[in-house]
């Protein structure tokens, strides 16, 4: 640890860093724009100037940009030097020559890095007397609003969009004082990570258009830390509320999970919370007046659940707590997973592998620090977008770390590192049924049928481990490549294997395991990731309960069985006829859910569940990390409460989450640790709870004046050490309960620096979340040896597979207008050869025949699709649920 001298005081700093990040890590307020912890330094904005001095005798010193200057033992610098201060102030004045003074009407106002830096430098008087340059703005789609006049040309947007996210349709145009950041032509931004522009931009050029539709200043939001409910990765988010509506989602940093970035589904998929389609009132159908009071409801339900002829169906999008409370209410043997048989089977394979402790279940940070990656059969770009973004960074960083050693270049010197690295990339092999944007980065990429992908995996493992039987013959091109892939993985120090269940193929899961285990036996620091479909798929799978399809037999035997469905739409799990058949066997149907859907239509008793935004709970992400989400606001409607609370009320249980956690740990050892995922509700700092509202929150009396003119008593929270007020502890709380980022002088998201041990490093006191799937100290395992037969196309029949769409396949996120707008229309994709053979072209109407039913879909020709595969989009509201993984007849109409 070198010692540097800052304004005549010695400080120990970390080696290999630049002066800016070192100063920020020490808590100094040094302004900056173009530098970003995830993107390094480029020296463009000149805002972070400090004075450095050669030695003790040097009193003049020279100005340097602290972001471009490496830490050196004994280095002397001054932040407060008058010349340095004057220069930093001048940089702001320059930026202000063209920046419109439109803060009052700018969405960034109040959470604007430019405002913060302006105040920090002391610039307060504009001497520039001439016209400002102006630009035409562009329409960039439903998510991002563009206001180029505010631009201060820090270049962060294009560096994020192109270098980090791999996007190509945002660029920098023109020159001198007319630099323009935008698209060649206006139009929808193509990157699914475009929403990050709103946080990356230090001012109001790129702002959240969905927030604009119901705009609220950051200081007027009630906030809480939450977990994204839209895929299995569990990205940490902040949700902000005003007037009973979620207004925006922003990134909540967790260096082991999502880091600095979110995908557009996660950021903009929140509108379901505010949907007209919310269930707001308990109903008992068939009465004169369906709507009932809570007492009536509970009385009825207690009566209904009293006779013991009852089953419960949990959900992969319900919290651990809701699933557990349902299990408690109906009895552990009467609890079923709300997923179809195939999904339950595949998820069981995943949990069996991960629970065996043979392998490390990789966090996203593990993936980022890997030096070779194999993605086997999972379209992570669409099913786990931030994992895809992480893979991208890993592949780049592996290459960077190799090149920087050549000339001992600091890794933060971004442009120089990229220049030296050129087209070199770390190793990535991507095998999937359809092509992926990740293929651009991949050394090897393969499109094949699921069984062949699995065979490829088995073959790779056989190359790595001599104890495995080799492939009898190299039937095709796929297996021929396995040797190269195996070699690349075996040369890595820390290989990462990624797979998942979306290809509906168990052999792929086993093959991924075989490869990882073979690497493990070679002494590699290997880890594995299995992507699952929903935010709590892992939490549900870990209950080990059978699929609800397994309940059919008993429903037939015991007629009149009461079925409680907690937050799942059975019609999304099964094809229409099977779902109907299932319901026909049920007695009374009790459904708790967030939104009305076809299952709620079938409910005799309907109960409104809180969404992630109005409820407390936990999800287990694909890695096996239990993460807590907090109620953002207490809805005016008392009926909207967590599923688990309703279920506890019916069962006469308690409504304290901490006590529930104790019971979960007692009842289900696989969730041991859930009680430590976050501080208990009674946790206080200096006797104070942590306020959900910033201290500048306005209108808390006025906003209720239509009900009463005196300020109402704030809602009490028994389940979190957070308050629904402005008052409380203002410092930095434990990471799990941070409700928003703010520090004196830092009103924008960049206040995050103050919450981290070092910029870009982990949150002070440790990242939140508790891992429940851990590698055992002495792992022992066996290989799977049941390799599937090679795929062969069949005459007149096609293997039906799902295509997941980042924007479109999500049940809840499709309630967001922008996401619905950008989601695809239904289609059926076939290979070119198959299409030609059927005399069909793009747009031809194809008829898929399944169990005597015909579904018409327009044809899309997928150039790289394997002959014999048919792909349809999964999860679109307009698409019927089809039996993925089975063979279907297809004819041209």
């Amino acid at each position, binding site marked *: 640890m070198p010692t540097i001298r800052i304004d005549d005081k010695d400080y120990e700093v970390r080696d290999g860093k630049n002066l800016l990040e070192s100063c920020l890590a020490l808590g100094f307020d040094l302004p900056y724009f173009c530098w970003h912890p995830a993107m390094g330094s480029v020296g463009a904005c000149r805002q972070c100037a400090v004075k450095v001095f050669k030695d003790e005798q040097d009193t003049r010193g020279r100005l340097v940009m602290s972001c471009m200057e490496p830490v050196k033992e004994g280095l002397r610098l001054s932040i407060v030097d008058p010349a340095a201060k004057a220069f930093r102030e001048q*940089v702001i004045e*320059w930026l202000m020559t063209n920046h419109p003074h439109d803060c009052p009407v700018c969405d960034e106002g109040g959470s604007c890095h430019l405002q913060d830096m302006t105040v920090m430098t002391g610039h307060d008087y504009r001497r520039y007397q001439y016209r400002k340059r102006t630009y035409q703005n562009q329409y960039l789609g439903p998510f991002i609003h563009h206001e180029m006049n505010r631009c201060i*040309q820090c270049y962060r947007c294009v560096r994020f969009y192109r270098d980090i996210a791999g996007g190509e349709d945002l660029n920098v145009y023109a020159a001198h*004082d007319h630099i323009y950041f935008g698209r060649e032509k206006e139009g929808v931004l193509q990157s699914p990570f475009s929403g990050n522009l709103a946080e990356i931009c230090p001012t109001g050029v790129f702002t959240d258009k969905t927030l604009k539709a119901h705009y609220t200043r950051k200081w007027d939001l009630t906030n809480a830390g939450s977990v994204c409910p839209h895929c299995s990765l569990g990205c940490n988010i902040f949700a902000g509320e005003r007037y009973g509506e979620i207004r925006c989602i922003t990134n909540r940093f967790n260096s082991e999970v999502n880091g600095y970035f979110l995908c557009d589904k996660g950021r903009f998929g929140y509108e379901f919370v505010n949907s007209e389609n919310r269930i707001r009132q308990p109903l008992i159908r068939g009465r004169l007046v369906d709507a009932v009071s809570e007492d009536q409801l509970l009385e009825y339900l207690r009566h209904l659940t009293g006779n013991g002829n009852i089953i419960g169906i949990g959900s992969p999008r319900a919290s651990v707590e809701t699933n557990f409370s349902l299990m408690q209410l109906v009895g552990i043997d009467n609890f079923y997973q709300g997923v179809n048989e195939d999904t339950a089977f595949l998820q069981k394979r995943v949990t069996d592998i991960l629970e065996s402790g043979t392998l490390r279940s990789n966090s996203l940070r593990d993936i980022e620090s890997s030096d070779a990656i194999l993605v086997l059969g999972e379209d992570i770009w669409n099913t786990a977008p931030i994992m895809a973004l992480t893979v991208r960074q890993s592949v780049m960083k592996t290459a960077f770390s190799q090149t920087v050693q050549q*000339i001992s270049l600091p890794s933060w010197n971004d442009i120089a590192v990229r220049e*030296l690295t050129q087209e070199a990339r770390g190793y990535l092999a991507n095998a999937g049924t359809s092509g992926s944007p990740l293929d651009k980065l991949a050394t090897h990429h393969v499109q094949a049928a699921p069984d062949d992908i699995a065979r490829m995996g088995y073959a790779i493992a056989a190359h790595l481990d001599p104890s495995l039987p080799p492939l009898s013959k190299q039937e095709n091109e796929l297996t021929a490549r396995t040797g190269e892939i195996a070699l690349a993985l075996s040369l890595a120090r820390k290989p990462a294997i990624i797979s998942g269940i979306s290809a509906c193929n168990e052999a792929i899961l086993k093959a991924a395991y075989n490869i990882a285990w073979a690497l493990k036996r070679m002494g590699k620091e290997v880890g594995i990731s299995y992507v699952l479909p929903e935010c709590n798929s892992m939490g549900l799978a870990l209950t080990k309960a059978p699929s609800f399809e397994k309940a059919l037999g008993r429903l037939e035997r015991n007629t009149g069985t009461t079925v409680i469905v907690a937050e799942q739409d059975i019609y999304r799990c099964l094809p229409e006829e099977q779902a109907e058949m299932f319901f026909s066997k049920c007695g009374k149907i009790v459904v708790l859910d967030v939104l009305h859907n076809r299952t709620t239509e079938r409910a005799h008793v309907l109960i409104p569940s809180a969404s992630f935004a109005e409820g407390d709970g936990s999800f287990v992400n694909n890695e096996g990390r239990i993460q807590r989400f907090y109620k953002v606001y207490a809805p005016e409607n008392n009926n909207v409460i967590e599923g688990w609370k309703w279920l506890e009320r019916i069962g006469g249980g308690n409504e304290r989450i901490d006590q529930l956690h104790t019971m979960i740990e007692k009842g289900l050892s696989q969730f041991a640790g859930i009680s430590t995922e976050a501080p208990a509700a009674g946790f206080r700092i200096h006797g104070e709870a942590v306020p959900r509202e910033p201290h500048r929150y306005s209108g808390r009396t006025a906003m209720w004046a239509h009900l009463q003119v005196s300020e109402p008593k704030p809602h009490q929270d028994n389940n979190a050490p957070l308050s629904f007020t402005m008052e409380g502890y203002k410092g930095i709380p434990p990471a799990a309960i941070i409700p928003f980022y703010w520090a004196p002088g830092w009103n924008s998201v960049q206040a995050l620096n103050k919450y981290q041990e070092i910029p870009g490093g982990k949150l002070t006191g440790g990242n939140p979340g508790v891992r429940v799937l851990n590698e055992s100290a002495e792992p022992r395992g066996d290989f799977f040896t049941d390799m599937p037969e090679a795929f062969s196309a069949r005459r007149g029949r096609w293997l039906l597979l799902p295509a997941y769409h980042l924007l479109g396949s999500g049940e809840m996120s499709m309630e967001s207008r922008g996401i619905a707008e950008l989601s695809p229309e239904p289609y059926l994709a076939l290979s070119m050869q198959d299409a030609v053979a059927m005399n069909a072209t793009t747009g031809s109407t194809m008829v898929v025949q399944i169990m005597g039913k015909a579904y018409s879909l327009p044809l899309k020709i997928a150039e790289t699709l394997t002959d014999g595969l048919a792909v349809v989009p999964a999860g679109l509201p307009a698409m019927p649920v089809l039996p993925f993984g089975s063979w279907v007849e297809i004819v041209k109409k």
Partner: protein
Amino acid sequence: MNSQAGMETPLTQYIKGNGASLGLKEYEAIGGYTALKKVLQSMTPAELQQLVMDSKLKGRGGAGFSTGTKWSLVPMGPEAPKRKYLIANADEMEPGTFKDRLLLEGNPHQLIEGMILAAYAIQADISYIFLRWAYRSAAVLLKKCLEEAYAAGYLGQHIAGSDYKLELYLHTGVGRYICGEETALLNALEGKRATPRAKPPFPQISGLFGKPTIVNNVETLSCIPHIVNNGATWFRNLSSSEDSGTKIYGVSGKVRNPGAWELPMGTTIRELLEEHAGGMLPGYQLKGILPGGASTDFLTGDHLDIKMDFAAVAAAGSRLGTGTMIVMDDKTCPVGMVHNLQHFFAQESCGWCTPCREGIPWVEKILWSIEQGAGRKEDLELLDMHTKFLGPGNTFCALAPGAMEPLQSALKYFRPEFEKHIEQKKCPYANHTH
């Protein structure tokens, strides 16, 4: 343009006065490519580097860095990257500068031979000429000469029968001043935005496409064959000062005989102005001189006996730059002239760093306002502030500091003129031009 009798003018002596250039045959007839053959037959790259080091040749592009030292920083030997690049910076766009054009149009083979030698010295295998877009006739000529050189075996595989190979390409720019900055040139050549790069790493280590690269000026490279042919001592002795060799000096402005001349390094301003440029035109008095192009500080009539070499001009408070001076006369408004220059620099800023992108346009607007009679007293403070804060180190590259040089020296030498504009609320020059 003609050389002076009795003085050695190796770079220009064979350049024809009629605007025609030397073809391969003519170039060979005057000893062209003998230096290349000599080096390939009898000198190692290290020996050639040492020769150039001993010659004390300094870069003629403006910064005056030792060419031998620059070359010596390139990784050599078996461990060095296989691919290296040698680039001729022919993006001559400094206002008032036209010396490289003379060499490009008059004797292109001399440049090509110099490039092959330089490439050999650093063991580069690919070479580019980055040519200013507007030098269209030079582009035509260079293309023809490159074909001739390839046909004659001076380029390609087995150059002049040796094992050395080199590919040389002509690349024409699209007209950005910043491409004359060597790292911006590299980015432009890679097809990226012409934005300079931070140094370190220097191009010698990570240059074009991340590979070791040397960028030398046309005039610098044109000196190399002569140093090889005549030796380091001869080259040092060409000069009348510390800096060795000859220099192509130029003079533009209201002088009787504007032009460019190859003269011993260290020729005085007075000799240049009075002997070669023939003095001021009748009715015009000398008021100021930008000695080395638009991005150098003004000197005045008091500096006429300064030697035009790197050290002496620096000691006088300016820079030798490209050695091609712009003369300002007493009928030209200094505010208008500096405004004109700032307009150029503001337009040519690449837009990467804040001080340059935002500062120079502000300066330009202030100067225009003063020139239009709308100046305020505070404006001079703002101009002073910019000359201070746009200094070296504060900006990303040397463009803005260069832009400030004529401004700061104009404020130093001609401040009363600025004040007069502000007091009289008009430009005191009756027929001023912008």
